[in-house]
């Protein structure tokens, strides 16, 4: 849910630096970036404010919450067991998130993509498992959201023909630096992928998922070095106050402070 901070940060950036020439994104940020690029800042803020609890409902997965009592432990065990069975039995079945419902909902809410071109072109990064490479895809229609949102292990991979794609977020937490263009003089990353919040060590299952996440973080640290500027939006942990307005304000304040600091240092000259 730290992705909501990207909206607040975008407001700070738009006010201080103007609109970006391109929005490059991956993972949950694809939803924020796409709405922003096609509908503008105010409409995006309204939409995510109104639909915040729906998104929370879709993306809240049992593995994130620590069990407080015996009943919760039992429930989580059953959920994890079902997950293991589902994930081992097919490539097409949902893993943690009910993706069939989720993508049907997105098709509906992002139907504007079919109707108009965006003010700011939006590109999403996806990872091709077979060629082991990242690819950029411009967002034109709701189905384009499918691969950049295939955040394994939470949402199943996206199979297109013989190819299997996952979100670049699953691979390295953030999208890579966008390809060079003459007009682009600054590549700024709004990093909302937490480097904390590992799942814990209560079972082999949790340990294996934690280790996978650690590798993603390690690759993220390396990917971030490719950007000119990075704004950290993953601290403090979003679980401390997971209300839309708090997350939005935190993003706005963090980005404003950072941009003013850079301006003082003449880093945008």
């Amino acid at each position, binding site marked *: 849910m730290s992705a909501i901070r990207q909206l607040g940060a975008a407001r700070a950036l738009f006010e201080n630096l103007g609109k970006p020439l391109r929005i490059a994104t991956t993972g949950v940020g694809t939803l924020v970036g796409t709405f922003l690029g096609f509908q503008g800042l105010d409409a995006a803020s309204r939409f995510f404010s109104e639909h915040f609890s729906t998104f929370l409902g879709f993306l809240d997965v049992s593995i994130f919450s620590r069990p407080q009592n015996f009943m919760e432990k039992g429930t989580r065990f059953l959920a994890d067991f079902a997950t293991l069975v589902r994930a081992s039995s097919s*490539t097409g079945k949902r893993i943690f998130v009910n993706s069939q419902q989720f993508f049907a909902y997105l098709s509906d809410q992002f139907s504007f993509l079919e109707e108009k071109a965006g003010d700011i072109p939006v590109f999403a990064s996806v990872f091709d498992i077979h060629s082991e490479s990242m690819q950029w895809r411009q967002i034109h229609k709701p189905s384009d959201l499918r691969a950049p949102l295939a955040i394994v292990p939470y949402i199943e991979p996206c199979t297109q023909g013989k190819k299997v794609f996952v979100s670049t977020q699953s691979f390295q937490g953030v999208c890579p630096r966008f390809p060079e263009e003459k007009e682009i003089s600054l590549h700024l990353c709004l990093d909302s992928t937490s480097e904390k919040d590992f799942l814990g060590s209560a079972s082999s299952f949790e*340990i*294996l998922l934690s280790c996978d996440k650690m590798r993603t973080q390690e690759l993220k640290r390396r990917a971030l070095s490719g950007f000119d500027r990075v704004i950290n939006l993953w601290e403090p942990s979003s679980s401390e106050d997971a209300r839309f307005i708090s997350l939005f304000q935190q993003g706005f304040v963090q980005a404003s402070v950072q941009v003013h600091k850079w301006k003082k240092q003449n880093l945008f000259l």
Partner: protein
Amino acid sequence: MSSSTDSKIGLALGAGGARGFAHLIVLQKLQELDRTPSVITGSSMGSVIGAAYALTMNTRVVEKMIHHFVRKLSPQIQTLVKRLEGKGSWSDQLDMALKTLTRTSSLEADTLYSMLTEVFGKARFSDTKVPFGVVATDLEKGVTEFIDSGFLVDAVCASSTVPGAFPPVRLGGTQFVDGGVLRVVPVFEAYQLGADRVIGVDVGDRPVQQEFASSLEIISYLNAIKEKRILESDLGGASFRIFFDSLSLPWYRFDQSIEILQKARSHFETYYAKELERFVTDHTPST
């Protein structure tokens, strides 16, 4: 500044479970060339072989140790292979799934520690004949820790706890898992220990997969690609790189020690023996 002929050569031995027996072949070659590494670092199985060699500086002793433990732990190894290859009965498989969700490891906590205690006893890092260090992964912070002091058995155990197979190891209040999670070949740490040039040895087996039967397989394959990217970055800093990439065995096939050593020897002789000899000669002080 060191000239090219008086380099302190470091040896960084990578993670890879049973395939890590192949590290012995590189150590034997260096011994044959009379060029003892000035520093040694290890990750996971690289830490086991590295520590045994750093303590004894004798490849025969290390080889004997490998065969001794493979024989001694044969029943446990068979159980491990059966479990991980899904060859058990349906009740074994169910048992494995339940353990994955309810326990921190599929093997008993004591298996690894008691074996390593038999090898290293109360030896400390200060007892090794060359500077030695291992890497382990801090499970809470998600970062690599470099350990080069204290009891060898504790550090090597922390570095070798394959996630899921062995339980995390608690050292000084921190929970650790296998060093290979974030540092496949600890090249950087060898420089940190004082090496001028580093030989990096990778024993990874990363087969290319085109078909996936389940989401779990895709997740696991993606994880292997992440490991590969981390490895490429690790080895980018090495002065000489050795890849034992033809061993084609899963990490847990400890029962194949003889075959692994044979294959590794032949692979090494074909692709690296002469080049390594040249590298070592170029960086050996002239008398």
